[in-house]
């Protein structure tokens, strides 16, 4: 089936980013948002993000116009019946997502693929709330979705090969690269990156090197565009903490134990870029 209309549920940061990505690839987007407050501001926020792209010569004014013209905001889920693929990007709450998939299952034609952008919850479990578990899949876009060229395509236990193949083709149409991942906590990106950030914090805590020294060493030594501590600051230290705790709880291995220094910094209100201070200091925007 040719996917030309994509439904997106949730117009928060991720939903906006996925909508922009799809519209930039020439697809029509139906963006469903229940909260009138979020809905009211979301097209403006997408426009502002596109303005930042224009300022950095990533896009042109006419491309911005075309992208915005392809995104249609809808209030309720029934409008998503017209979509060929629906991607859910609502908050990470299992009950919320399961209820949503039950509802989508009743609205969308049975051949449609239902995808979740979850990074922590089980695709397999969400799929059990539909009559089409073979057509449920995870599409894990990373933030900021329009600029990260990767999507983790996450197979639940019952996801069919056809659903996977169609999803991979969809990712290709978005001009991104898909990696096939079998559902497991943290997938690939989070599972490999978070312990790396955590270890960098241990190095600082143990007095082996300063934060600047750790980031300089890792950037120059391995050709990384950004050091691990600056990256943690950008992600938000509370988010990093939440992730480590999740991996630790799910996998029970000590190597996922959150670094005590991380815990202490969060208690002090040092959350990274968003609070003006983390491992480094930041000017307010």
């Amino acid at each position, binding site marked *: 089936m040719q996917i*030309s209309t994509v439904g997106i549920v949730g117009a928060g940061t991720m939903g906006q980013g996925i909508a922009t990505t799809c519209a930039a690839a020439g697809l029509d987007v139906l963006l469903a948002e229940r909260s009138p407050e979020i809905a009211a501001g979301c097209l403006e926020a997408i426009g502002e993000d596109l303005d930042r792209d224009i300022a950095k010569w990533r896009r042109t004014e006419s491309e911005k116009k075309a992208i915005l013209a392809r995104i249609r905001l809808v209030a309720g889920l029934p409008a998503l019946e017209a979509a060929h693929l629906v991607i859910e990007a609502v908050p990470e709450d299992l009950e919320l997502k399961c209820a949503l998939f039950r509802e989508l299952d009743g609205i969308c034609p049975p051949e449609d693929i239902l995808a979740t952008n979850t990074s922590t919850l089980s695709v397999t479990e969400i799929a059990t709330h539909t009559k089409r578990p073979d057509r449920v899949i995870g599409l894990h876009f990373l933030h900021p979705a329009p600029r990260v060229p990767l999507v983790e395509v996450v197979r639940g236990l019952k996801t069919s090969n056809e659903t996977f193949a169609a999803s991979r083709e969809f990712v290709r149409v978005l001009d991104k690269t898909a990696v096939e991942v079998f559902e497991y906590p943290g997938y690939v990106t989070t599972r490999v990156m978070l312990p790396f950030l955590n270890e960098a914090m241990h190095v600082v805590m143990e007095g082996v090197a300063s934060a600047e020294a750790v980031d300089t060493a890792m950037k120059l030594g391995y050709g990384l565009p950004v050091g691990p501590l600056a990256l943690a600051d950008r992600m938000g230290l509370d988010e990093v903490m939440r992730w480590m705790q999740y991996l630790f709880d799910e996998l029970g291995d000590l190597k996922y134990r959150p670094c005590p220094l991380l815990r202490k910094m969060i208690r002090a209100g040092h959350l990274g870029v968003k609070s003006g201070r983390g491992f480094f200091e930041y000017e307010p925007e």
Partner: protein
Amino acid sequence: MKILVLNCGSSSLKFQLVETDAAAEAAGTDRTLAKGLIENIGSTAVLKYERPGAKPVKETAEILEHKIAVERSIALLTDAETGVLRDRSEIGAVGHRVVHGGERFKASVRIDDAVLEGIEDCFDMAPLHNPPNVRGYRAARAVLGSVDHVAVFDTSFHQTMPPEAYVYGLPYALYQRHGIRRYGFHGTSHRFVSRRLAALLGRAHDDPGLRVITCHLGNGCSVAAIRGGRSIDTSMGFTPLEGLVMGTRCGDIDPAALLHVVLREEIGSAEVNALANKHSGLLGISGLSHDMRTLLEAAGQGNERARLAIDVFCYRLRKYIAAYVGALGGVDAVAFAGGIGENAAAIRAQSLRGLDAVGLGLDPATNAAAVGTEAEISPSGARARVFVVPTNEELLIARDTFRIVSGLPPA
């Protein structure tokens, strides 16, 4: 013979139905019967269609792929009300514009499996253009069945350039490994205009002593130096970015300047590519528009950046024309074509200013009067003559297609 000419972009399809044959070509009486444009394929597409003597059609429709776009085009051409054909079997052949033919395709060619493979081998060098060209071919073949298809390349006319014109001053290994060299584009237009120019001069187009310079000035701009009907140099290079300042492209630039921008602005290769191709040129300098008409109007009202953009544009063009006079060892005629070349008398005048030293000059009255029409604009008795020659790439694609499917030698 009625030839369908297709020019297929990533989400667009331009089509023309042209009636031509050997006699009509010789007499210059071959003509476009109808033409159309479908944009935004893959979603809600916008379709425009017109036929001389009938009301233009404009509609929107869901057109998800090129095959459906080709179907729709043929439906319009055969429609009882809008059409010009009784049925699709009247289409004698299909001519396709293909952007990049690399070093393999030195002339237009009938498309078979081997040719298709050759075009696909050039995907790497024209990732935005060749794949949709092939998609258009596959769509037309699926819709029209056994009719012959011909590929006409933007690059092939410039394949006669000698190595000293096409080799870059880079390590030669890059040419050998990746085909990094100058190819040139707009070949169909330069070929059409230079032939017409020869006819206007009353000389055979392959007269070995004939030296002409053709300026294709549209949204993309290029100049070609042509001796004896063969291109010996052109301003575009490995991609259509090199050479003249264009609507949104920077043209010639020191590559180190872009490397510096990468560091200073913390951007990547995709951004640099967009910066140089979509945000530069007339638009980038003026900060106002890529459209020369808008800039001429603004400059007339005192807008200094619009004036500067025009000055840079004309100065670069003048340098190229003078350089090609040198490359050709003199010049017999210069032609202006494309939207700017055919319509903007002020740009033609400014670009030739000071070139009287090499025998190039304009008659102000005839230059000002030549808007969108063929005309000689140099003063009578001039050593080198200057013309406005409206280009018609589709017509040349149709003529090539007719000759190839009829087994005639190339014109």
